[in-house]
């Protein structure tokens, strides 16, 4: 029981921290990777709450596919959130 309390508290702190980082970060590529971290922690949450089906779906779709379509979009648009600074970041 005490183990569950510690795991849930640490995971929820990590979840909120990565969500805030995804919103605040100016480099969109780092923000997208941070969104992937949210999905990863969420999938652990689902597993701990006895929903293995949902955990598997979140792992396959939320972590892999959603992240890659965001990365493809950034490749075709821009990597800076403000678009005012130099475009050296854009080449990847």
């Amino acid at each position, binding site marked *: 029981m005490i183990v569950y309390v510690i795991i849930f508290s640490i995971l929820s702190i990590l979840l909120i921290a990565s969500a805030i980082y995804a919103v605040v970060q100016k480099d969109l590529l780092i923000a997208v990777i941070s969104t992937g971290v949210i999905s990863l922690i969420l999938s652990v949450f689902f597993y701990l709450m006895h929903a293995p089906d949902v955990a598997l779906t979140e792992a396959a779709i*939320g972590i892999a*596919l959603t992240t890659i*379509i965001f990365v493809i979009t950034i490749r075709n648009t821009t990597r800076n959130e403000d678009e005012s600074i130099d475009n050296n970041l854009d080449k990847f």
Partner: protein
Amino acid sequence: MYNLELQNNLITTSVYGSAIALILIGLYAVLVKKNLIKIVIGLSIIDAGIHLLFVAIGYIKGFTAPIFSPGSENLANKMVDPVPQALVLTAIVIGFATTAVALSLVIRLYKHHNTARIDQIKSLKW
């Protein structure tokens, strides 16, 4: 720390609290940010929070996953609620489809206006 009620409260706060925090953070990104990709990221964060909330409502303490395995066929009384799980399963896949369509619209908009910021798009004609 070994108090049982305090432990229960901590788990409740961490699950419901992080779900509500995700919804609020996503809403903030949608309302304040100007970059379209940031707005779509905010929408997917709201999605994640709502999925967590749904599964948390179906959870029952001390029960097992809703799968009959050999040797535990008579445990139908000891299983968590399967209905929210089925709904969330559907919602995750649909969420991926809507995110893909939204991002393709962002790409299209960027090609026309050469910007992905909504405050710099001057003309409304495509």
